């Protein structure tokens, strides 16, 4: 794919994300905010699933850890935003560092099962460690952050830009990582672990660092998620959330970073817009997943670039798709 058309497409997408919100209804704006936050989670998972080939089924754990950090720190200690952000991300990093030691002993299906189990550990803690998490009731009344700006983040529009900031930050960090030699070696590991080992790479260490980075950025998504909802409960850490994150990556297209973000947006909008019209919306969502796997195994991003190469590399990415 010609890099120039890609850049133009990216620029247009960003422009759309920056200039369109003031014209949107506040409900669509909150959905878009939700899509951005889930986008961060999906992109961070993409580093594992797409670039490194590690299918994690416990990624909601980091979202949960980040979100619970916000819940506990703000409601109990009245902590400010920057401190909360730092702690939330740090705690997610520590959890990922510990989980990585356990999970990376296995590959393939076994890795899937271990991450699933580890994710359930966090869910169990959220559910049973009542003195800290308030158990099933969850932590409510989490205030929106006060950054000392003239715009109150309690309003949907400023909070949208706040989330957009977080999204762009995560995108930039991940972009730098996957473009770096380190990111390239992750791809190498995905393609052939034994060859990379023969070439003298410390495969385990590469995977481990990738795992921790993914968890850390997942924590960032969690911090934003808690501020967005003003509430965190064990439901946020459920297996369903981890599975949804995986589906976002698969739907958007693995190893494309922006693809999973688009996948996240597609799922958030599908879920909320379709469920308005029918209670059988799960059926429609299921059909979309199956359709993707059968007709576009490389996801939305894959389908788009295929379309472009068919048209002889002509520029102009169909942007509407990204927002559908």
């Amino acid at each position, binding site marked *: 794919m010609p890099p120039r058309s890609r850049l*133009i497409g990216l620029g247009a997408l960003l422009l*759309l994300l920056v200039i369109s919100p003031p014209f949107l209804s506040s409900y*669509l704006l909150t959905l878009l905010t939700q899509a951005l936050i889930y986008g961060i989670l999906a992109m961070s998972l993409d580093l594992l699933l797409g670039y490194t080939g590690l299918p994690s089924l416990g990624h909601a754990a980091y979202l949960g850890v980040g979100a619970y950090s916000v819940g506990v720190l703000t409601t109990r200690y009245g902590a400010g935003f920057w401190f909360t952000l730092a702690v939330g991300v740090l705690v997610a990093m520590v959890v990922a560092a510990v989980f990585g030691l356990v999970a990376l002993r296995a590959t393939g299906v076994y890795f899937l099962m271990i991450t699933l189990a580890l994710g359930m550990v966090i869910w169990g803690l959220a559910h*049973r460690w009542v003195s800290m998490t308030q158990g099933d009731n969850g932590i409510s009344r989490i205030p929106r952050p006060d950054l000392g700006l003239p715009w109150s983040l309690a309003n949907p529009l400023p909070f949208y830009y706040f989330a957009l900031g977080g999204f762009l930050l995560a995108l930039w960090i991940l972009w730098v990582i996957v473009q770096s030699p380190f990111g390239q070696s992750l791809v190498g590991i995905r393609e052939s672990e034994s060859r990379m080992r023969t070439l003298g790479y410390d495969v385990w260490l590469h995977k481990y660092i990738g795992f921790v980075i993914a968890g850390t950025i997942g924590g960032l998504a969690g911090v934003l998620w808690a501020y967005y909802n003003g509430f965190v*409960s064990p439901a946020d850490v459920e297996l369903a959330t981890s599975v949804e994150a995986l589906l976002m990556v698969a739907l958007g297209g693995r190893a494309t970073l922006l693809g999973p973000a688009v996948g996240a947006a597609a799922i958030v909008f599908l879920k909320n817009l379709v469920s*308005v019209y029918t*209670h059988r919306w799960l059926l429609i969502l299921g059909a979309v997943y199956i359709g993707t796997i059968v007709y576009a195994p490389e996801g939305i991003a894959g389908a788009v670039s295929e379309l472009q190469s068919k048209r002889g590399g002509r520029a102009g990415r169909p942007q509407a798709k990204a927002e559908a």
Partner: protein
Amino acid sequence: MMVRTLWVALIGILAFLAAGPDPAWAQKGPIKIGFQGPMTGGAAAVGKDMLNGLMMGLEEMGHQIAGRKVEVIVEDNQGRPDVALTKLRKLVESDKVQVLTGGLFAHVGYALAPKVDEYKVPMLYPVMAADDLTQRQSARWVVRTGWTSSQPSHPFGEWVAKTLRYKKVVTVAMDYAFGWEVVGGFQKSFEEAGGQVVQKLWPPLGTTDFAPYLAQIRRDADAVFALMVAASSLRFPKQYQDAGLKARLPLIGGGTTFDEFVLPSLGDEAIGGISPLIYSAAIDTPANKRFVKEYRAKYGKVPSYYSETCYTAARWISEAAKAVGGNVEDKEKFLAALRKVEIPDAPRGPVKLDAYGNPIQNIYVRRVERKEGELWNTVIHTFPAVSQFWKYKPEEFLKQPVYSRDFPPCKHC
């Protein structure tokens, strides 16, 4: 090619705008009620009961309240708090509903309450029963027309000690807020009346195999108090019987252990179970008999308390809207009217709110019996006009912490 990109971007913006907010003239249109409940997932059947009740209530009014048409917008919150919050935003910001209702689980109630206050749109809680929503964490715009979890337990605890004369009771309850509150209320009044809770077991929410817990139950107790919900209610009585416990230790419990929602799926193992609740389909009043008969004709099943409370919620909204002459757009007045509603002849009996915003209503002690081949909750005792604080002084009651796994402590374990 830049042009093409721009075009696409513009079309994107227009597509969004087209789905934007309704124009202001919508105000004179129908009264919009936003309902959300679990319509998919494990609790979907309960959500259906709730919606049936609400719709039946509105149908009886011909979908007209105070001369205005009524429109109900139904949203599926999957029983998840995060989804519930998104649906709340949708109902308020996009649909511009004037009043909200629905919701099943306690944590959804806690999640929604602060947001409802932020939006300043009144929301009726016909089912969500978490104690603190009308006690220590009350929300101004939440109007609870249902009950608090510990409300039926308070009079029941004393009644069990004095009437059934049980001295030692073991509790087995789902390990979450609703379970703690139902058990806590029971333990408080039961022990004040001379009883002793000698063991408290807490199976996790969703447990379906109770063998490990049944094996632990102390056989020297006089009875077992069980609090089950949904799928657990379906299995517990059978396993209790199979473990040979039913013949030795009578089974009593919280209202949801034997409610009308599970009774049709239970057999002889449930017979004799005694539990308190704000409703029984067997209440012998003309209002309830008519309600049960018509609900059955319409939906082919006996109404549960979920149906009754949502049915009454429809009536509640209508009474309040009439009181403000249909002008539900004056939100402060509408809210005040909602708090003043008194319904003397609801199927469950007379209902009105206390100063803290929770209904004062009858508590029915019910025993499961078989009548004409069906299981019914026969009312064996009625406590009239019980508030959430029962005989306690509200100020003093509120000084104690909310009931939890560790409160009241188990002194006799």
